[in-house]
C-alpha cells in the first residue's frame, strides 16, 4: 500500500549492488540450466516412466514428511518451549543434529536403528515382516528425519515469542492445558506453523543423501526426483537436465503460490 511513497526515497546504491550480486548468484545457475535444456524432446523425456514415477514419489513422500513433521514436531516444539525437564538442552541439540550432519550420515544412522538388523527394525522385521529400507516408508522416514528439525525450530521460536498472557487468560476461564494449546496457542502461532511446514516440505522435496543411503535407489519405489537426476547425470545428461527443470518448476510454483498466505512475508 505504501509502495509508492517508499519508492520516493531510493535505496542506497551499496545495498543494491551487494544484494544484486546475491540475487545473481541464485539466478545464474537457473539460466545455465535453461540454456542447456533439450527443448525439442523435452516433452517425451518428462513423460517417460522414470520421470513420472520419480515426480509422483517425490510429491507424495515430501508431503507425507511435512505432515509427519507437523504431527510430531509441534508437540515436540511445545515440550521444548514450555516444559522445564531435565536434559532439555540435550534433546534440543539432538533434534537439531540432522540440520548439521551430512544427510548420508543420517541415512546410515537411520539404517542402524530401523534397518533389517537395526535396533528397532530387526525385532520389527522378525515380528511382522515389515521392512522400512528400500520401501516408500523408508523414503518418508528419511525425509522426515531431515525435514522435521526445521519445523521444530520454527515453531519453538514462535512459542518463545508468543505473549503467554493470552494463554493465562484462557486458563482463568477454566480451560485445561490441552484446550489452551488447541484453541489459543495453535491459532496464535499459525503463521509460523505454516512457514515451518513449508520449509519442512521444501527440505524433504530436495532430500538426497539420507534417502539414497537408507532407502536405496529403486525406480518407482524409492527413486525420488533428486535421485533420478543423480543417476541420469551419469547416463543421460539431457534427461538429468529435464528432470532438474521439473524439480525447479514444481518448487517454484509451490513457493510462489504459497508466498503470501503461508509465509506471512507481507
Amino acid at each position, binding site marked *: 500500500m505504501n509502495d509508492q511513497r517508499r519508492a520516493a526515497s531510493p535505496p542506497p546504491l551499496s545495498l543494491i549492488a551487494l544484494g544484486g550480486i546475491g540475487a545473481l548468484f541464485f539466478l545464474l545457475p537457473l539460466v545455465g540450466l535453461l540454456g542447456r535444456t533439450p527443448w525439442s524432446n523435452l516433452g517425451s523425456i518428462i513423460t517417460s516412466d522414470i520421470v513420472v514415477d520419480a515426480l509422483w514419489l517425490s510429491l507424495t513422500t515430501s508431503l507425507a514428511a511435512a505432515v509427519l513433521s507437523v504431527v510430531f514436531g509441534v508437540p515436540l516444539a511445545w515440550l521444548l518451549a514450555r516444559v522445564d525437564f531435565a536434559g532439555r538442552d540435550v534433546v534440543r541439540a539432538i533434534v537439531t543434529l540432522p540440520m548439521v550432519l551430512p544427510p548420508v550420515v543420517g541415512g546410515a544412522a537411520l539404517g542402524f536403528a530401523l534397518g533389517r538388523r537395526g535396533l528397532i527394525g530387526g525385532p520389527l522385521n522378525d515380528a511382522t515382516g515389515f521392512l522400512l529400507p528400500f520401501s516408500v516408508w523408508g523414503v518418508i522416514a528419511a525425509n522426515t528425519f531431515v525435514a522435521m528439525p526445521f519445523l521444530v525450530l520454527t515453531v519453538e521460536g514462535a512459542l518463545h515469542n508468543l505473549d503467554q*498472557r493470552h494463554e*493465562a487468560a484462557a486458563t*482463568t476461564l*477454566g480451560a485445561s492445558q490441552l484446550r489452551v494449546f488447541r484453541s489459543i496457542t495453535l491459532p496464535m502461532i499459525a503463521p509460523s506453523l505454516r512457514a515451518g511446514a513449508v520449509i519442512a516440505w521444501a527440505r524433504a522435496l530436495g532430500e538426497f543423501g539420507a534417502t539414497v543411503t537408507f532407502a536405496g535407489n529403486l525406480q518407482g519405489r524409492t527413486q525420488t526426483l533428486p535421485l533420478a537426476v543423480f543417476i541420469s547425470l551419469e547416463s543421460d545428461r539431457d534427461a538429468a537436465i529435464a528432470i532438474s527443470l521439473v524439480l525447479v518448476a514444481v518448487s517454484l510454483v509451490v513457493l510462489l503460490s504459497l508466498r503470501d498466505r503461508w509465509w506471512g512475508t507481507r
Partner: protein
Amino acid sequence: MTINLDARMAVARPDGFALDIHLTIEAGQTVALLGPNGAGKSTAVDLLAGLLPLDEGRISLGDRLLDDGERVFVPPAKRQVGVVFQDYLLFDHMTVAENIAFGISAGGRSTADSITEAMRWAERFDLGDLANSKPPGLSGGQAQRVALARALATDPALLLLDEPLAALDVETRSTTRRLLGQHLQQFEGPRLLITHDPTDAFLLADRIFIMENGSITQSGTPYDIRTRPATSYGASVAGTNLMTGTNSSGTLKLDEFDHLLQTSDTGVSGEVLITIHPRAVALHPAQPHGSPRNTWETVVEGIEPLGDTTRILLGAPLPISVDITPASTAALHLSIGTPIWASVKATEIAISPAN
C-alpha cells in the same frame, strides 16, 4: 455481610520485590486496590487468579481454600476467579461470541449450547450487533465489555478487574466507567478493582485499600481515605476533588458552590458525583486563551509540598486542590493570596450518578 474473600498473601519476586498484604472483601462489595505503578498490584492479581503461587499466606474464597502456600494450590482453571485483564487479552482469532463462549464450553457445555449462552451475555452487555465481529475492530469500551462478559459468563466466585479503564482514552473513560459500575452491580460475589486512578476508586468502590511498595498503607471507605490520608501518596490521592451537583446537558450546577462547570459527559443527567483530578487543573497568571471551557479567576489559599509535586488549594468560587510541579510553583510566583486563573478541560471532569 460475611467476609467472602480472605486473602493473606506474601510472595518475593526474583527481582527482590516483596509483597505482603491482607485483603478481605464481602460478597456484593467492590474493593479498590489503589496504588502507584510498581506497587505490586498486578502481582496481587496473579496470586488471586492462581497464575502465581503464594510463598506464604492463605487465600480462601467462600468455603474453599485456594492456596495456603504449602500443600493446597488450586490451579487457575479450577479457581472460578473471573479476571478482566489489563488490555483485556481478547482472543483475536475468535469472534466476540466465541470469546464469550470459550469459558462456557471449557466448563463442559456443548459448543452450540455455549454459543447460545454467549449470545445472551452479548445482548446483556449491548454487544449483540457485534457478536460476529473480531476483537481488532472493537473500540476500547466495547472490548472492555467483551472481557467483562467473557469473565462473568463462567459464573465466577470472585471478579478481578485489573486496570479496566486504563486502556481507554479520556473522552470515553467517564461513560465507560459508569457503565462498568452498572454492570458490576449484576455480579453478586466479591469484586476487586485494581487501579492507579483515584477517580476509578472513588466512583466505583465501597472500600479502598491503598497499596505502596508491596504493602497496604491504608484501608477504609472512600470518605476515610479522603479525610484522613495516612501517607503522602494517600494525601495525593485524597486531593482528588469530589463534589455533588446536577447535570443538565453537560452543564454542572454544584450543590455546595456557586459555580457552573462544563463536562463533555452528557450521559447522566440529574444528581451526580463529580470528580476532578488535581493534576487535571492548569494554573495561569492571566486569563488563558484557547479552548478550555472551564476557566475562572480565584486566589491561592494554601500551598503544601507533597514530595515531587506541590498541592495548591484554591479559594472561592471553587475551593479545589491542584497539583503542580515545584518548578511551576516557582515560575508562577505563587504565595498565599496570589490572584490566579484556573482551567480544566471539559473531558477531564468525570461524573457518575449519585446514589
